[in-house]
């Protein structure tokens, strides 16, 4: 993992606002319907009683270059910068992976 970077998503807080997608599309000039990141939805469905399943989470695809141009200038990737729920962290994979055990509903994307 040395020297590799990625994005940690604490999707317990992802509200599904799509700012990551729009920031990515605008940063890279992607055509409508294409993006380096996409928000996925799980639910809503009633599991039982009062308990629901209703989560959102961004996943990253082949058009994600972790905003190499931005990070080279010391800026955050456009999606991380604009995430309204502040649920995305950019950093070295070894540092981010150490955070994974802290609580559930997190994913680490190696990119």
């Amino acid at each position: 993992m040395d020297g590799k970077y990625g994005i940690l998503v604490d999707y317990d807080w992802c509200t599904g606002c799509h700012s990551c997608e729009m920031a990515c599309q605008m940063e890279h000039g992607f055509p409508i319907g294409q993006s380096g990141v996409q928000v996925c939805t799980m639910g809503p469905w009633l599991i039982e009683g009062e308990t629901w399943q209703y989560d959102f989470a961004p996943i990253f695809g082949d058009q994600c270059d972790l905003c190499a141009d931005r990070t080279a200038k010391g800026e955050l990737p456009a999606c991380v910068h604009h995430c309204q729920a502040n649920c995305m962290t950019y950093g070295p994979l070894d540092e981010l992976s150490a955070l994974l055990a802290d609580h559930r509903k997190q994913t680490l994307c190696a990119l």
Partner: protein
Amino acid sequence: MSETKYHLVEHEKPFKYDENGLHVTRGSAWSGPGCHIGCGVLLYTDDDGKLVKVEGDPENPYNKGRLCNRCLALTEVVYSPDRITSPMKRDPAHRGEDKWEQITWDEALDLVYDRFTEIKEKYGAWSIPFVQGTGRDIAAWITRLAWSFGSPNYMFNMSGMACYLPRVAGCAATTGNFWVGDFSQQYPDRYDNPEWEPAEYIMVWGNNPLIANSDGFYGHWMVDVMKRGSKLIVVDPRLTWLAYKAEYWLQIRPGTDAALALGMLNVIISEDLYDHDFVDRWCYGFDELAQTAAAYPADKVASITWVPEEKIVGAARTWANARCGIVQWGLAVDTTKESLPAAQAIGALWQICGFCEKPGCMIVPPEILAYSGGFGGELVTPEMDAHRIGLDKYSLLKFGFQVASSDEVMKTLETEEPYKLHGAWLQTTNFLTCTSPDPERSMKAWRTLDFIVVVDMFMTPTAMALADVFLPACTYAERDGIRVGDGAQRGETINKVCQVGECKSDMQINLELGRRFNPEAWPWKDDKEMFSYVIECTGYTFEELQQAAPAYIPFEYHRHEKGLLRPDGQPGFNTQTGRIELWSTFYNNAGLSPVPYFEEPTESPESTPDLYEEYPFVLTTGARNWFMFHSEHRQIPHLRAGRPWPIVQINPKAAEKVGVHDGEWVWLENGRGRCKRVVECTEIMDERVIMSDHAWWFPEAPGEEKDGLFGMLDLNVNKLLNSYLPGKSGFGANYKSMLCKVYPVKEGE
């Protein structure tokens, strides 16, 4: 300089700087396009002066670098090929037809000046209403234009003014002020401020703040404080993400909010869970409130609201036992016919628990310019105000926004009583598409006027149907300004970085026209000098504030104890009794019920059971989506892609029952009209309730009236609403609680 020392944030760079071959300008993002907030943004322009990128400003404590889709896609708005970029006129004989003639600004302003002056001389200035929409930086500038021209008929054209104004007027009448939740927004150091603490419970009531961002409230502050420990009680007919995260989700029947609040008050009072000290010292009329609430036992409230009894009781206990609490309320409170008693009952939930003027509670927002008062109230003479339409009928119009009654204006248009109207100034409003009930009746009524001016960024169905002159307005990237709006105010500037065609800002247009009408009321040499005048109390000129912004007014809690909420400097609240009035002196004097009550919506399963058999769904409208602001953004490619069609949300079992399918085009219909929608089957809905998008039109569709006004006449859900039927106070109307049926659109329809 003023004596007040404003609190600032440290900036690494001046407000304009160069970076990697681009020019960067820091500023506030406030309108157009419409929005209720005004985030800190960095606008990037190239050497040709073209806006190429928008980023959130990490230094701005308001949004801390974050942005929503609508600012991220701003370049597509600014450079949309659909923008109107020159003034135009059209012969009134051709209203509704695409027969526009391009004219110069001088011709346009001469024409408006001449026609308005002629009408004023013949019929009086009051015969021209000045109408605004929502969410754009316009209240200050249009009020000054209306009042300096001589018209008291400034208005927001929605039945019952059922958006924000009922809550503002209601709070002003019963507590002397408006209130907002304390999310630390008044401090530059925000959540780190040592005085502040997060609310233990936030009661989200009729609002989806993450998307709506209403009333100066940046929606994702909700997530910020949830991370810091705030827990939620959510009152919403739909399972929003916040409802999913809540400790209590009260899935309410639309339009029964007042009953639920009264039921919760009854639990809190009968179980003696309220704040005795606060009630004894600062509230008036508690016993009368207690008596009123006693008529709403939980089992009865459960049958009215469809919220299970144990949840009503549990949520009420949890709320009252909290250390500190916030009610984050929204439009659903306004969009019910008897909205004032609903607002009064919900307000009492925080008032009797003493959640006032304390950290993590409800606070009176600090203000630079009293936003609801407009700009230039001293220009309104008693003679003018005597001509304000609706004031004689609805005395509550004295409070909050100094508006004319939209419902009474509609009658005036149709009956010419108490006098005939002759012209209209419609600025930042697309009311036929968005807010007017009964759009066809509304169009016909406004068509009776001799001369109508529309100021907007795009050709809208309203402008196509009504305008004789169209004046093209700017986006926020194309203009200077100050962000002085709703919510806790701070000193922010909007900074021009580019120019599109001949577009001018709304402020510039009003300044240029205003000084022709009434030079003494518009003494400033340019807009910057005018902005400096408005923010004079801050001690900054506009140019100084551009550098320093954002500038925060020093804030303290417990202002009612220190005499800081009344103009006479006495402790207490700015009401007749000096207390928060749970029993309202003003309502009583106005012939309204002094205590809150619940009334069934005009149509509902309870009030019209026969109709309910024919129209088996309770229809709620107007929930917002992530990509669009009311009737805006339909022509912006990346935003439209996020919401390509107007949807109606239906529970899958209900859809199956009435034989409609996910993705299918359907009609929503009741006895007044019908509109087209696309079905979205979703478990977030109760089987008895459906939610329809509002304010839809297709800019890509033929625009002339004979072709349907950009599809609006087939898409407008307001055709299903009561036709101008406000609450007893003149405030509130049933926009979210009608009945309807759903059936498939046939081929060729």
